[in-house]
């Protein structure tokens, strides 16, 4: 019996945005996210910036992607104390 063929496809920018927006929705309401000189934002404001795709929105996407990649690699369950020492 022939196995089912799986193909990998590029995830589009729109799909990534959608994923990040969904993840940002899990942020607590009533709290603010301070992002240095950019200011402090509610989750609704961050979602708006991700949808807009401006500099801050792109940074938020980078934060999420980096976190998800670390989760995928299981980095949180490794020896973090030695994994992120960078000089």
């Amino acid at each position: 019996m022939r196995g089912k063929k799986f193909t990998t496809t590029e995830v589009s920018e729109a799909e990534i945005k959608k994923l990040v927006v969904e993840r940002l929705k899990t942020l607590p309401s009533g709290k603010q996210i301070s992002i240095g000189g950019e200011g402090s934002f509610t989750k609704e404001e961050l979602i708006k910036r991700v949808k807009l795709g401006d500099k801050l929105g792109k940074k938020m996407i980078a934060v999420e992607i980096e976190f998800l990649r670390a989760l995928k690699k299981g980095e949180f369950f490794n020896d973090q104390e030695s994994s992120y020492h960078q000089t």
Partner: protein
Amino acid sequence: MTKNLLITRPNYDLPTTYLFSWSKLVIKCAYQKGFRIVDLPNGKSNETDFAGRVNKTDPSFIFFNGHGSKSVVTGHNGEVLVSDKKNLDLLRGRVIFSRSCSSAMKLGPKSISSGAKAFIGYKEPFIFILEPEKSSHPLSDKTAALFLEPSNQVAISLLKGHSSLEASKRAKNAFAKNIKKLLTSESKKEDSATLRYLFWDMKHQVCLGDATVI
């Protein structure tokens, strides 16, 4: 070298108000450890006072709090204190901890090539979550504590005599401890949503220059 700490503490918006308050714990530790402290709070975090006090007191350790960018650290109302083109000589021979966004990207390496002993900072924006209703008492904000206690560990470890690399490691361990706590405990869903930013700050904190300097 005399044990001198110079600390900048601008205080003009929500993030700087939090850094201003949380830095008090570092000042308290410095007193306990016998450091001579030059505190530049609020409007005293300006270029003139900063340069004048550095030249006069010759601090072994400078702790910047405030906004920044890849090549700049600012004081009160965003006034530039040091950049990759300005006042770099003031950092020569000193240990620097810059709790400001992204300054370890360009200013950090530039300060090392200009003679700073060590530069600990963040290569990306320093992100933290806060509870606005606690903004009049930032030290009681338990959400912000998840971020600011670990970053305080850099300064506190240096004051306790640990090397620059060890101080950076101890802070990263404190971030990691909070991450593990949120991952493994029955924390509220909204608390675990802070993980991504704890990880971000931990990952982008770096120690440049002489890792062994105390």
